[in-house]
């Protein structure tokens, strides 16, 4: 099953190594991990998507993270209503003739073209991981030359009413 965690960690040398090393040692698969500063100076926020075996493993992950001295807070967003976004840059082969077509494809995704070259265009798209997967599939026939994804970053919603996306809609099911 997929597990979405948000961590508040001390901004110390080696903290990313500490966290990723923990996953490696205990055999948890990381789908994505993003790190950046948080609202509090000296603290970073990590957003981690893991592929864990079951609920017991998910519980164990949280406890092992809590045990880390540099980890102040572990928030499990897996079953909560969240706002979650990922950004992708996609460079697609695009002849002059194809560009209008590509433009039409990306419009419903609210993606946009960032850079135009002689033989390709670079597209930026933001959204849940499934939305990005879908756009990539639609663009694949043109030939994807380069692809870069940031991984998911997320918050819990202030009002946890579960009206929008469930986790599985954002990161897909296992």
């Amino acid at each position, binding site marked *: 099953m997929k597990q979405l965690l948000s961590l508040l*960690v*001390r*901004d*110390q*040398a*080696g*903290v*990313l*190594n*500490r966290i990723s*090393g*923990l996953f490696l*040692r205990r055999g948890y698969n990381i789908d994505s991990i993003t*790190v*950046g500063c948080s609202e509090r100076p000296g603290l*970073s926020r990590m957003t981690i998507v893991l592929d864990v075996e079951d609920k*017991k493993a998910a*519980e*164990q992950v949280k*406890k*092992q993270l*809590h*045990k*880390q*001295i*540099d*980890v*102040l807070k572990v928030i499990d967003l897996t079953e909560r209503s969240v706002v979650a976004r990922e950004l992708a840059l996609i460079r697609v082969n695009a002849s002059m003739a194809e560009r209008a077509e590509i433009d039409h494809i990306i419009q419903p995704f609210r993606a946009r073209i960032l850079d135009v070259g002689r033989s390709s265009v670079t597209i930026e798209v933001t959204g849940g991981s499934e939305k990005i997967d879908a756009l990539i599939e639609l663009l694949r026939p043109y030939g994807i030359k380069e692809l870069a994804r940031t991984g998911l970053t997320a918050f819990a919603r202030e009002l946890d009413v579960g009206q929008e996306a469930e986790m599985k809609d954002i990161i897909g099911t296992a």
Partner: protein
Amino acid sequence: MAKTAAEPTEPEGAKEQRLLTGAEILIEALKREGVDVLFGYPGGAVLNVYDALYDAGIAHVLTRHEQGAIHAAEGYARISGRPGVVIATSGPGATNLMTGLTDAMLDSLPLVVITGQVGTNVMGSDAFQEAPIFSMSMPVTKYNYQVRHPREIARVVREAFHIATTGRPGPVLIDLPKDVTIQQAPYVEAEALDLPGYQPTVVPNALQLGKLSTAIARAVKPVILAGAGVLHARASELLVAFAERTGIPVVHTLLGLGAMPATHPLFLGMGGMHGTVVANRALYECDLLINIGARFDDRLTGNPKHFAPKAVVAHIDIDPAEIGKIVHTHIPIVGDAKAALERLLAMPIDPPKADAWRAYLKRVAEAHPFWYVKTGDLKPQRVVELIDEMTEGRAIVTTDVGQHQMWAAQYYRFRRPHRWVTSGGLGTMGFGFPAAIGAKIAAREETVIAVVGDAGFQMTMQELALLKEYDLGVKIIILNNFALGMVRQWQELFYAKRYSESLLPFQPDYVKLAEAYGIAGYAVSTEDALTRLLEKHLFDDAPVLIDCRVSPGENVLPMIPPGKGLHEIVGTQPPEGAADVVYRFGSSGIAGQEVSAP
């Protein structure tokens, strides 16, 4: 992204303060933590530290290998309850500590380990004796530091001791670049500890304790599984009082041995792979299992599917990550064993109606003692028994890992806590002898016996040099079966007797070896000769080495084969027709004694 922490700002008035080198600040900070002995080995990157140590008035034990230093520090920590402090140089000095760090991590021993590092100006350039110790030691320490400025040293040392000794104890490493040890700074007194992510829960939740007391009142087949957490919390007396109050029998883990006296009528012995039949039976059949400070290691549980299958499981542990990790737990209680037992003893708990259960366990214990067959040569079990009888279970005993370790655990009847030093989690060959050196330094007035195997002893025997030099009356008992005994046993039982690289027909002459290091050495192959030697040498304060040539091919039994459940224990009876069988209750105090209701 994570980046190096900002340099701390100088406090008011710092300008007038005397400047010290980083090395001097380190020594001063160690003194303020009350450190009076260091275990270490010098080298290029720690020359400044050793220079500051030269006239600092802190004792330093120079081992002959860094591994010896860290195992000695572990033995010291286990006996004294205080953190063992280790110093090694960069690169190979520090990499030689990895086994000890991992050992201390798995067995929750408080250590503060200081490693030199190459100067910050060359770090990352594959400089001479450079190794990435900060990242290498990360997964095998409770926490670690790399210091970048001398002003940080005092704070880091204070935090390191706090982290190593509180909550679930463990090793903390401080990596110290050489230039940081020579740069000058004022001694910046560490203010209040600033570790917002580290707040161990000591006091258990009253509601959870209430659930446990209800479960106790309802149980008819309760058992306590007590591990090293009881010892770390210095709660042995409370454990015994709680068992007596409630009449609940106690099983110990390997590392828990000694918390309850082995001769106590509620004591069932050690559980697990080579535990007593009665301890394993109790763990299998119980309807309430109260785990206090044990982590359900696989050598204890056997196949977890068959572990305490009918029981309500309660687990008291200072480390919440241990609860529910292996065995599904119904009553999780996060907290210190001492704090939990104090509160439980203050609660009006109805003792469970367990008369029939205790009587049953007593019958099981009496029907299934340990056994061995006399074969005319010296039995390893008998060696441990003799030592137990002569020391009345009161000596400090250290071991490596393997057959000799299991025989020591089975036959040495520990009457007192904090007298048993063994490598449990990591199972480190070569641990026992240097650990005995550290134990002796922690308790010079005690009899310290290193029971080691011939293979393990050869891994760290260079530390023999210390016995004479530091006047350490450690008694070395080698259970010499000319083999890697436990490897040989598994090959006999599970690999069709294909003894691949497990036999050691060539051995050094240990008597001459002892003499070479200036201590008395003997080789014996009979019980009489051994008895005479022990009578002569066990109670003085001089070191001695006794090479006990024991029955080759002897196996540790009973045994729960790997992957099997507690109920699938084998080797509980001697082979049919075996003559001259010796039966012993070993450390199973319930057998042969009256067990009364509380």
